[in-house]
């Protein structure tokens, strides 16, 4: 069974029919890039996977647990699904280390000493072991985003959702964050990322999904469909962004 299974998923915001029947299966170790125009529903789709958005119709199963049947324990689910946001969303009153330690200590009741070890390990992984005691406003955007990745990793998620995590960064800071994601992918982390970095999607992703008007308009091997798009919409889109 797939790690994430989405079938016939529909989502409305009022009268705005945003997701119009999404079917998607994500296997362990997949690195999936979601692309598409602004407003096409990429973020909404990503946010339904950890229950930040509700759904109106369809099925969404993560690691054997139905997310939206009303019975499922959202908090248990969210321990398996990490998320990294465009705007970092670090907690400003906590140091990098405290940001990372918060969820393990509070949610998983991990002992402080052990949580500290975890925090050191994940901060080392994102190349910031020397920033343990720095506050977010003392870090660059790229560093803040790497702390946010470390914070998600500290919960040992089975899948990591990334919503345009380099879009708020100055261009010279994009690569340090992408390098971290690339390393995670190489280590076998399951990733679902909304991105406008087409080269990254092509080189690191093993599946590319083009969302158009709330539907999966085209999907497949990144190199193949970016070089030879089947639909004129994807061809137009890649011409516009590459």
């Amino acid at each position: 069974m797939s790690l994430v299974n989405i079938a016939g998923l529909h989502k409305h915001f009022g009268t705005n029919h945003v997701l119009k029947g999404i079917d998607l299966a994500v296997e362990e170790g997949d690195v999936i890039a979601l692309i598409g125009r602004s407003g096409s529903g990429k973020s909404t789709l990503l946010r339904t996977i950890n229950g930040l958005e509700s759904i109106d119709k369809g099925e969404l199963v993560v690691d054997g647990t139905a997310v939206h049947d009303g019975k499922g324990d959202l908090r248990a689910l969210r321990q398996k699904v990490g998320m990294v946001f465009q705007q970092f969303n670090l907690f400003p009153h906590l140091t990098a280390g405290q940001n990372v330690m918060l969820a393990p200590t509070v949610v998983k009741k991990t002992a402080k000493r052990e949580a500290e070890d975890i925090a050191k390990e994940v901060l080392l992984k994102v190349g910031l072991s020397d920033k343990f005691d720095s506050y977010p406003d003392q870090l660059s955007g790229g560093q803040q985003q790497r702390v946010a990745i470390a914070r998600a990793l500290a919960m040992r998620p089975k899948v990591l959702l990334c919503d345009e995590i380099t879009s708020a960064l100055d261009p010279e800071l994009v690569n340090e964050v992408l390098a971290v994601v690339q390393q995670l992918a190489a280590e076998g982390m399951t990733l679902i990322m909304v991105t406008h970095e087409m080269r990254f999607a092509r080189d690191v992703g093993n599946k590319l999904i083009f969302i158009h008007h709330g539907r999966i308009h085209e999907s497949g091997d990144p190199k193949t469909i970016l070089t030879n798009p089947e639909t004129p919409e994807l061809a137009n889109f890649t011409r516009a962004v590459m």
Partner: protein
Amino acid sequence: MAYQFDFAPVFENADLLLQGAAATLGLTAAGAVPGIALGIAGAICRAWRIQPFAALFGVYVEAIRNTPFLVQLFFIFFGLPSLGVKLSGWEASILAMVINLGAYSTEIVRAGIEATPRGQLEAAASLALSRAQTFLYVVLRPALARVWPALVSQVIIVMLGSAVCSQIAAEELTFAANFIQSRNFRAFETFFVATAAYFVLALLVRQALMRFGQRVVVGRPR
């Protein structure tokens, strides 16, 4: 003949003024700590619409914000004994200050909570924090830090407002000043000194509370 200023009769009673100032400070501390705690509780109920407390706090806030402090004080001191609740001047003063500050700080703290960026709540939810954990570890400190200057101002307002507690024989600074001028008939000099004393007290309390806020609430001493 022009009025001859003479401050000596005032300073002869410096001990009374100092006692009064200390009492004013004491009243303020005794009113501020529970008052702000009440405000935090009210703000949580209001911000998260925890019924029926949200509605009760709503009525309470409007009742206090739209009536004079002196009347609130008289109600507690002169009115409550009819219901069998007899309080001393001090007790009534502290209770009135707690109730008054509680209402205003409910609204101040609520504004701080509601200004929490949505991304903070989404980040906390994504990390599987519960609502209570989110409030305690993510929302509260930044919210208090955001509105701390407004809370401090409100505490100062309540401290200055405590002057009317002299009306129910709480022997604070204004009571002392009144007592002194009734004996030496130096109203101008006495109230001039009392005014200056309030001014200095207000500056000191503001300074101290802002420092406390920087250290404890913001948590990053500068």
